[in-house]
């Protein structure tokens, strides 16, 4: 193989993979049109952009917007909040679908498994607007069913306003996120589990391994590559807290807790009309996301030999 010149090798590979490449073409085109071309708009992060002067003729500021950003106490708060919420979501939310997938896989009664699976991924299709609407109703201190239940169980006081309390805010954010996405996210793991060779389990049974042993020594190691890839992606997403959720759950009592980067970028960019400043926040967010993902990928590659690229 090493005797073939590099040029020929590439040409041969393209020829061999021609059908696959044709299949990818529409997606690549789509990405160029909708993701790559609009990227030139990012230059307004370095300008004092006014719509009339446009992308090219707006006055340049260099790193002015970024200097202001790092001196802005609200930005620092929002950065802190973003990481706080994302890390809580990662710690509690990441293992949840794995556990659900393992539990579902152990169910013997297949019909029950299918029903549970459908029910758990149904919330994924409900929009955050509705979910937060439900929350306001269910958690109302006077009339909410869940509030009443928690009061009677002695978990909260009778006048606790769950939706207006910055301490319960984090719990609610993480809990609803898990509730909404657990079923959907477990599908990938279930698919990976389905791909495991049943002979491995049969051999383990012959060797006398109990259920727990089988999960520990066969299912989990087989899931490892999937888990690691998804973990790397999640770490990259640490700076992107869920905008819909935060925006909807924000009210005058929780505005400090709910002020995350994406909400702040929206507030500055669209509500206050400071397009450049809003873009600078967004660009910062993307760069941090990329750096985090790269570090996670690199670390994983060194330690586990599993990586995204």
């Amino acid at each position: 193989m090493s005797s073939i010149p590099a040029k020929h090798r590439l040409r041969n590979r393209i020829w061999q993979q021609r059908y696959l490449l044709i299949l990818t073409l529409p997606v690549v085109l789509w990405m160029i049109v909708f993701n790559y071309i609009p990227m030139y708009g990012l230059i307004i992060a370095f300008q004092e952009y006014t719509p009339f002067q446009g992308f090219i003729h707006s006055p340049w500021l260099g790193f002015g917007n970024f200097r202001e950003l790092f001196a802005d106490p609200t930005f620092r708060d929002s950065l802190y909040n973003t990481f706080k919420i994302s890390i809580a979501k990662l710690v509690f939310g990441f293992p949840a679908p794995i556990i659900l997938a393992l539990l579902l896989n152990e169910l013997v009664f297949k019909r029950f498994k299918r029903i549970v699976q459908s029910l758990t991924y149904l919330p994924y299709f409900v929009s955050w607007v509705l979910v937060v609407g439900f929350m306001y109703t269910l958690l109302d201190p006077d009339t909410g069913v869940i509030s009443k239940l928690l009061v009677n169980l002695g978990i909260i006081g009778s006048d606790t306003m769950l939706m207006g309390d910055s301490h319960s805010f984090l719990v609610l954010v993480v809990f609803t996120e898990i509730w909404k996405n657990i079923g959907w996210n477990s599908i990938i793991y279930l698919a990976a589990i389905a791909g495991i060779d049943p002979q491995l389990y049969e051999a383990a049974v012959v060797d006398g391994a109990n259920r727990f042993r089988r999960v520990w020594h066969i299912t989990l190691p087989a899931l490892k590559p999937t888990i690691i890839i998804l973990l790397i992606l999640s770490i990259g997403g640490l700076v992107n807290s869920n905008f819909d959720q935060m925006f909807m759950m924000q009210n005058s009592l929780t505005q400090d807790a709910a002020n995350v980067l994406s909400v702040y970028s929206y507030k500055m960019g669209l509500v206050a009309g400071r397009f450049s400043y809003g873009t600078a926040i967004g660009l910062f967010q993307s760069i941090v996301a990329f750096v985090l993902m790269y570090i996670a990928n690199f670390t994983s590659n060194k330690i586990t030999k599993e990586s995204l690229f």
Partner: protein
Amino acid sequence: MKGKGLKISALAILAMSMLAGCGSGNNANNNTNAPAETAAANNGNAQASAPAESNGPSWQKDTSPFTFTQYFYGNWASNYLWKDQFAMKLATQKTGVTIDRKLATGSDDDYLNTMIASGDLPDTIMLDWNNPAVTKLIKNGMVYSMDELMEKYAPDFKAQLDPDMVKYHSIDGKLWYLPNLYETADRLTSGVPITPIRPWFIRSDIYAAIGSPAIQTPDDLENALKLAKEKFPDVSPVGVEFFDVAKNGFHGSNSMDYLIYSFSPHLLEERVKDDQQIVEYPMRNKGFIDAFRFLNKLSLEGLFDPQLLIYKQEQYEEKLYGAQYAVASQFMNNMYTQYNPKIESTLGKEQAYTILDGLKVNGQDPRYPASRLMGWQGLFITKNAKNPERIIQFAEYAWSDEGQMDMRYGTEGETYDMVDGLPKYKQDILDMSVKDNATFNSKYGFNDSTLLFRAGKLWDDASARDLKESQPVQYEAMKMLEKYNFDNYSLGMENLEPDGATAEGTINAKVKDLWNKTIPKLILSKSDAEFDSAYNEFVKQMDQVGAEKVEKVMYQRHLEDLKKKGL
């Protein structure tokens, strides 16, 4: 790991691409430039050929069917859409013009800023003349100046405009918009009495049950609320509208004015510090803060439901329709034409709300700053307009006495008669306007064309008379509060906040954000000491972000306002 670099960059691009958008700005700009140039060219021609012959109003020259689009700033304004209401149909019959009015589907500021950023503007815009985006529209050359259009297409129009109005609303020597609801000085003495605050009301049966005590001071009010809570534990003692500094201004909630101008009757005068050349933020005023301290006191006594701080307007309204507050605040006209009628028909007449008198603090009467309106929205004609000629000519019609009467009263003999020199709706229409306001709006739309409404003695006096006859209770309530009004026109306190695009505008936005966060802390403080420390912390932060710079700008704008008014 072949092609690693490529993959990395692909991922980076993927990650970044999500925040890029609004790519059409440049093209749109080129487009908006073009009509301006051709218009300028036309201008030259017109002047060369012949001075526009002024035979009668310009709008009569061309009455062929013509539709122009309009964005109306106010997503709540579904009543104001031009459909086939009587008033709108009449205007179309006479002029051929139809307005295709659009509202924002979500937040108005999002919608407006997105339109501006993409350069994709409708033919005309109705936008509050003191909105920060107004400067953007003008500075970016996105709108025509009215002088230019009037000169070219409607030569008689300018003479009909009140010179004071033109002087007040001109920016850089030109008029860029025509104000809707502009009122002249005699408005304070004629027409419906002005109620410049959200009044507070008490539920009639509760008031009777606690022995109808006189409520003249904040202490009286507090005691009444305590009694109300004892006797009616299921009813929430007090209800105020939602708090949002960005939307409502520094008072936070529109309901606060009632308290603020009791605790600080001279607030506006006290804010101006000529010796230091600043106009202070109201948050530095002791009386202003005392109004919030009063709410904190109510909160400490369990009389203020903290849920009011997270309620949306709709949730508050729903509870008010159910008469679930002992004392509640609401816009005067809405209380008497929407809430009370609904409460009377569903819950019974005894649960309707009665007006409370103004509260006296330290024996002083409150003072409500009642300016005549300098205008509400401005009508802007954008450079995107396909036919600015027809639009400005239509504006001349709308501004004229004929247009005003058409859109307010319709056709004489059909929808109104002249009684003692004043117009009066036919009896069935008058009844409908009181009993079934929704049908009145959708069928006749006499309050809804809102484009270039202006004050005029004829219709102002007529509406005062109608109100007195058809709603004597509301008229009495207005009269009762009117005695606290004072004319703040000469104080020069209009439109003080700095332009959003400037450095001071940014500081101002930060101050508002800080204050917005501080209000709930103040109201829900567990003690006076906690209240004071939250307040002091706020003042410290406000000074840190540079509040004083804004206060200096506000002083300059105060001087400008005086100058524009010729004072």
